[in-house]
């Protein structure tokens, strides 16, 4: 079971290698903090986001666009949380 999870996470991590540096950097930080606590729901949401084209995904992560999918929206929030934006206010 643990082996399965490791393989799934490794696959997701590789799918986080993107065409745009901006996304690489965001995902890099995300994995540093969330590798151990990503649950099945989170995995599914992340996987669906990773299917997107890079410019569209960056539009969501940078807050220029929003998604209607609540699971995706939660994941986008987590991606944005790990950025230094948390230092504000």
């Amino acid at each position: 079971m643990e082996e399965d999870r490791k393989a799934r996470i490794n696959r997701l991590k590789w799918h986080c290698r993107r065409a745009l540096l901006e996304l690489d950097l965001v995902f890099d930080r995300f994995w540093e903090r969330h590798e151990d606590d990503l649950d099945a729901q989170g995995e599914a949401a992340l996987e669906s986001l990773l299917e997107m084209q890079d410019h569209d995904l960056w539009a969501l992560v940078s807050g220029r666009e929003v998604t209607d999918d609540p699971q995706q929206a939660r994941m986008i929030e987590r991606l944005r949380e790990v950025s230094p934006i948390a230092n504000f206010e």
Partner: protein
Amino acid sequence: MNYTVRKFDAVIVGAGGAGLRAAIQLSEAGYKTAVLTKVFPTRSHTVAAQGGVAASLGNSEEDNWHWHMYDTVKGSDWLGDQDAIEFMCRKANEVVVELEHYGMPFDRLDNGKIYQRPFGGHMSNFGEKPVRRSCAAADRTGHAMLHAMYQRNLKVNTQFFVEWQALDLVRDAEGDVLGVTAMDMETGEIVVFHAKATIFATGGSGRIYYSSTNAFINTGDGLGMAARAGIPLEDMEFWQFHPTGVAGAGVLITEGVRGEGGILRNSAGERFMERYAPNAKDLASRDVVSRAMTTEINEGRGCGPNKDYVLLDITHLPPETIMKRLPGIHEIGIQFAGVDCLREPLPVVPTCHYQMGGIPTNYHGQVVVPGGNSKSMVVRGFYAAGECACASVHGANRLGTNSLLDLLVFGKSAGETAVNDLRGDVSAHKPLPQEAIDKTLARLDRLNHQKDGADVHETRLAMQRTMQKHAGVFRFKDMLAAGVERISEIAQQVAQTQIKDKSKVFNTARIEALELDNLIEVAKATIVSANARTESRGAHVRDDAPDTPEMPDGRDDKNWLKHTLWYKEGNRLDYKSVKLTPLSVDTIELKKRAY
């Protein structure tokens, strides 16, 4: 370790713009073509190209390929080969129109023709005034281009091997290239792709620098593989830098920020550009601004705990202006610098952007090396195109929008030449040399069993910081010499990297270690070549190159109008002359590069 062999007519490594364009050519001709790519094709770094593709279509005003050629030669600071440059500029219209036929959604004029916009360095009438030459699809040109070409490839039955890491070039005792070894990331399986034609289109290697605009995938895999197989790397000292990348992250801050009134400041809060460029100040050209920033940092006036960046200040601008005219900047500052640029200045450094050098090729896309009586002997079965190759059309400095053109023209050219070579060769595949395959297996085995070795992440970081400090945008004799030593120490650590995770499925730790094997070859090539070239030319600027009437801006045509060739074996350098004779027109004569 086990491996299997798969046979193809052609194998292409890389599915960015150049790889996809080459594949179209081969598959359309009916050849069994495999494209290996470590990420899904439309996630290649070509996606990040926004500016457009240069072609003298003349849709909005008079233009022609000869003017484009002149601009490219001048931009290259005369290091570009004039035969290849003429070839590229003459082919531009053809490849752009083809792309349109593949379904590329170019922006259009009211009359239905492709819309063209001006871009830095592109002029009419041999440098007289700016001309509209760039064809774009909004700000997603690279992305749209990849989609159009990927669809075309599906139509002509190109076989994609997605999420495969190419490992080594297979070269026999006669020096012929017979394919590559590769790893399926999903299973860890090793396969030898046995082919009559091998085309490298693996992109750039900007990750050798600490501050780079390149995505993480740009690890110079093709260059590393070529170097290990005894192929030299050409003109690797020439890297294009952008003045304002976010410090520590590399994300680009557009020139538009300074255009709107942004000011660069040092640790004393001084607007230092007033000293370096009293008239243009912060709006001076890219190289002038980058050099001034580096001087401030090197002389101890940098900011932050390590005094290693300067500040880009826009806090004096009205917030409405920033949010309206520079919408992405606020978000980038927050995301990557932890800075609200409405209230605080942004930390910036000159940032590596594009690699002008690469695997030496001629304009047919054939890889050429010194051998026999020639400095440009064709390596049979081996071709390269795009950023990983050096044709050389960019010479010492690339013009904007010429990179997308390069990958279209030379991707097609490499594919076309491979098709012709395959047509002329009815013999069976040459036998695979066991020794070449064993080298890959030994490399993997070493990595799997390394004990007390070096950490991949730390070693990569040490390499990146060394390259940034010792071979950055502005170069100093002593720093370069010390950098050569330091990089060679780091190379010894790279040879002993260790991974804890030995699993087979998508083992990213193993992939990163293998990528580092490639990056270090590029780093060595860059710093050794830069250390040896004692002049300033294009993007290679040395503090110790004297600016005299014979050597304007430190350019020494008498001794250095030549291409560098770096060999992995012995860290050795060789040189070959620049091709100053074009295909059909007169030579564009040497003169000082001034705009």
